[in-house]
């Protein structure tokens, strides 16, 4: 079940929820906030979302992962608001009987998240300035 949260991601809880006796593999991706970007020092960053559409898009990615990869579960949680440096802003957890589909679905979901989900990251820089991170134009629905 996709989630948008405004506090620290509880990754340990997501991992134990993903463990299933019929699965042998859990692939996980954590996106963590970086202190540099394009040569500039990042001091602070925050995420904003079009929340109902972002949640529906994340849920759609989870559904698609279950339908197109041989995996048993896929969960995506994204954090919004200020995220301290080096903390996770997003986590994708995929459980499967075997590791190859787990890796493939996890990687696919992260790639799609970056171009299909209405979430924006703003960085604040030292010694000054701020910017929305140059992102990807949301894919045209007819392109699918």
């Amino acid at each position: 079940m996709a989630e948008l949260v405004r506090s620290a991601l509880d990754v340990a809880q997501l991992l134990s929820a993903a463990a299933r006796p019929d699965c042998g593999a859990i692939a996980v991706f954590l996106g963590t906030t970086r202190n540099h970007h394009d040569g500039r020092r990042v001091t602070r960053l925050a995420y904003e979302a079009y929340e109902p559409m972002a949640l529906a898009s994340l849920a759609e990615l989870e559904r698609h992962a279950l339908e197109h990869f041989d995996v048993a579960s896929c969960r995506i949680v994204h954090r919004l608001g200020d995220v301290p440096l080096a903390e996770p802003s997003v986590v994708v957890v995929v459980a499967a009987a075997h590791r190859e589909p787990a890796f493939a679905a996890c990687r696919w979901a992260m790639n799609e998240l970056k171009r299909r989900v209405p979430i924006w990251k703003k960085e604040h820089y030292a010694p000054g300035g701020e910017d929305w991170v140059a992102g990807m134009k949301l894919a045209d629905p007819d392109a699918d």
Partner: protein
Amino acid sequence: MIVTVLFFAQARERAGRSSATLELPDGSRVADALEEIERLHPPLAALRPHLAVAVNQRLARLDAVLPAGAELALLPPVSGG
């Protein structure tokens, strides 16, 4: 008819607000709404080539006809993750 407009990220900052209500003729399309929005908030025009637009939380084409009461969202390039 009435349309609600939501502004996000750069669009929000350029509009100076996060939402607005527009009065448009019945049968207006997404492109008509964008023109009216840019008339009210000229700094948004430069964003236009990069914007995606959602109508009722689904991506929509410029020629899509707006239903009455639509929620139209201006979505700059996304950078989640």
